[in-house]
């Protein structure tokens, strides 16, 4: 290994954590939330208007709250309450779902039209 090799390797190892941080923590805040009930879209909401939404799933009503650009499950008739423990989400591209009650929240940015193209 030459000195340049070693220097490059050290520089890369040093920079790698920053790449992780940049890609995992800087997705941009979401503009709107899409709520899915089963396979169908239940509603779309801007994250700029604070409100509470009730969605009826197979187990019963789930309560979702939007406040200051963030969204969370307040209450859901599931057993594990994983969706509630996830807490607030506000990054574009993130998902939160109450799987037993078949309700999902998907956050999107402004320009996103599709998430995958297949040929």
């Amino acid at each position, binding site marked *: 290994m*030459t000195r*340049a090799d070693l220097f490059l390797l050290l520089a890369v190892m040093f920079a*790698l954590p920053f790449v992780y941080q940049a*890609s995992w923590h800087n997705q941009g805040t979401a503009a709107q939330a899409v709520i899915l009930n089963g396979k169908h879209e239940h509603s779309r909401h801007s994250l700029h208007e604070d409100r509470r939404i009730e969605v009826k799933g197979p187990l019963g009503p789930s309560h979702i709250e939007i406040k200051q650009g963030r969204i969370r499950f307040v209450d859901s008739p599931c057993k594990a309450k994983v969706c509630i423990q996830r807490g607030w989400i506000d990054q574009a591209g993130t998902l939160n779902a109450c799987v037993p009650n078949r309700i999902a929240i998907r956050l999107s940015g402004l320009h996103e039209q599709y998430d995958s193209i297949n040929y």
Partner: protein
Amino acid sequence: MTDTLQLNTTPDDHRIAWFAALAVVIHVVESALPSPLPGIKPGLANVVTIIVLCKYGWQTAAWVSLLRVLAGSLILGTFLTPTFMLAFSGALCSVCVLYPACRLPGRGFGPVGFSLLAAMAHISGQFFTAWMLFIPHPGIWQLFPVLLSFAILLGVINGIISLHVLKRIK
């Protein structure tokens, strides 16, 4: 009276063809190996590229690398499919990065440095292509650091392999 078409080949052309053939074989054999994680490949064919780069210079290495992707895709039947586009853009990016890298003053980079640079350029090029053409969703970048880490690891391993091969054929 028939005119036979005569292609005048130089020793350089023959060298490129032989090394590209060797790289294609490694490429095809490697594609038959199962991968523990989608998107991660050892990229052993790039060992050939690095050795050629160190022994014969950038131009020969660029030919070998791009011919390998082209011929490999024809053999595997992936020519012009997304797989090919990703492989080709990765190889193209690596070749572009290696150009300035092998023109550094002084001793410059050795095989390990070249391999590491090429691996990182490869994965970056692929991600950019995937993002532009196939998955235009910002979520794809969440996978980038993970695959970059593997690229660094495998790039260094390939570089060390190249280093040892170069020592033996000297």
